[in-house]
Each structure stands twice: as C-alpha cells, then as structure tokens.
C-alpha cells in the first residue's frame, strides 16, 4: 500500500514536471505570405518583440515562417498576432502552437534549408 502510494506520488510529480516543460517550450508558429525581404520583414520582429508575453522571435524567409516563444504561463491571442502581422504588411495563412522550442525549430528550418540547396 505504502509502495503504491509512493509510485502514485512519483507519477504525479513526473506528469506535473512534463506538463511544466511542455508549457515552457510553447512556441507559436505562423505561416506568413509575402515574406521576401529582411528589411521589410523586420517590422514583424519589432511588432512581436514589443508584446510583453514574447520571449524570442524567429523569422525565416526561406520557409515563410514567423515563430515566437512565449514567456512562462503567458500567451498571445491569435487575433492579436494576426493583427500585428497585418499591420506589418503581411498575411497570416496559419497559426499553430507547438511544443517544440524555438531553438529546435530554428535548427530544423536551417537543416531543411541546407538540405534543400
């Protein structure tokens, strides 16, 4: 009985820990049309970085991807993101939340870019 209780507590702790890690790694990935120039696209980065919930921003012209990592426990509504990208002059085609970290996504996109050349 005591052993079962210990195992249950350990499992609960592991679940809580993994949920917390997933939360910390929350990344918003957007597919954006019109991204051809870094000079023009820098407005997107400026807009997204100005948001209090933003931790870091990634822009890939090659993959037409804009992504941002969120600070712990924070989020940005899709409508806000869509509005900020539109104000910067671009069109959002898709918004998704992924558990992948921004660094991992950056490495993945770089790998794809090099693999494709």
């Amino acid at each position, binding site marked *: 009985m005591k052993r079962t209780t210990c195992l249950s507590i350990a499992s609960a702790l592991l679940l809580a820990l993994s949920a917390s890690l997933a939360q910390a790694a929350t990344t918003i990935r957007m597919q954006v*049309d*019109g991204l*051809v*120039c*870094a*000079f*023009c*696209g*820098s*407005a997107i*980065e*400026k*807009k997204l970085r100005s948001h209090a919930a933003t931790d870091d921003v990634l*822009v*890939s*012209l*090659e993959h037409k991807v804009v992504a941002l990592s969120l600070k712990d426990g924070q989020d940005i509504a899709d409508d806000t993101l869509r509005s900020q990208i*539109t*104000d*910067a*002059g*671009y*069109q959002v085609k898709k918004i998704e939340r992924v558990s992948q970290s921004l660094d991992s996504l950056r490495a993945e996109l770089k790998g794809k*870019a090099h693999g494709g050349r």
Partner: protein
Amino acid sequence: MTSLTGRWRRCALAIAAALPLPASAGFFIPRDVTMFMFSASPDSQMADIAHGVRADLALSAGQSRYRSDDRRIDRHYTTLQGSWLIHRDYGVDGITNLYLFGGPLLARSSEFSGAGSGDDTRAGLHGGFWADHETRRIYGRLSTHTYLAGGRSQTVTTAQGLWAPYAADYEDIATWLGLQLERRSGLTDATQVTPLLRLFQRRWWVDVGVSVNREHRGDAFVNLMLLF
C-alpha cells in the same frame, strides 16, 4: 559618440559632394515603424523621415535639392507627403505593390525671382505613383514623381531592375545587382543610366552606383535607409 573632427567632416563633405543622383526610398513602411532616408549625388540630395501610421498609409517630411545638368537651375523642395498603398498582391514567391503619394511643398529657386534677385519661395504640390514587384531573387520598379510650383514643373521617372545572386534569409546580408534608369524632365534631356549595388539587412539598406551614360559618366550616388 564624439562629433566629427574637422578632417573627417571635410572628408565626409567631399564624399557627399561627389555623389550624384537621387535614389528614391522604398515605400514599404509598416505601421508604427519610422524610416530615415538619405540620398546624394552631384545633381541632387534628399533627406526624408517617414512613419507608418496605418498598414496602408505612411506620412513623411523631407527636403530635397535638384540641379540641372547645365547648373543654371537649382531647386530646393520642402515636402510633406502621404503614401497610400493602393494594392498589394501576395503571390506564391513574391509581392507586388502599387502606391500613390503626394502632398504640399515649398519650392525655393532663383527661377521665381528673376536673374540676380536671389532665391524666392513658392508653395505648390507634388505627387506620383510607385509600382514594384519583388521576389527573393528579382526586383523591378517603376515610379514617377512630379513637382509643381510657381508655374514650373519637374518630373522624375525611375525604372529599376535588380537580381540577387543568392536568396538571402532573414539573418543574412542581402546582395543585389542591377540597373537604374532615371529621367528628370525639366532639368536634363538625358536618361541617366546607373548600374547599382544594393546591400541590406534587417534595419539598414544601402544602394550605391556610378552612372555610365555620356552626360553623367562617373557620377556616383548613394542611398541610405534606416528603420527604427
């Protein structure tokens, strides 16, 4: 940062004086973004600051100077301008824009006061259109800008075609090579032909070129843009 020393200031002025034609700035100024632009050539100089107030509207204030090829006409314009994005097409690999722009101006020139009377100033209007298409490897632009003041008019028509030897990504310095054709009616009968080198990264942009047509051969120009 310390101020320029006399030697460096003289050097900077000498370089600026050697630079020719005006390269118009880009119009892509997103909301809440401010852009400073400066261009210089022997026949024209221009400084402009613009701010995006909406996704499709930027307001700017600027100062420009144009000189005729024979150096008899010297015009100084102080301009206020609204630039409207009329149409934007989002293609699979590129983007196409059409802008209309215009506003009031003050023109200062000796033409308004008669020979030997010094410069005089007239109020007027200016405006035009700008169309461009851009992919990560190809850029094309056609624009025209007309100034009207004191019964005088001047139209600057510009065509640019550029090609990027590699598709730069967001972190990279983009390199473009191309050609600019420009005609300034009322100031020159020649079409200025200028091979261009364009370099830009996230918040800075530089165009440099040297004209090759007979009337402007050897005239260099520079165009600098910074985003804030």
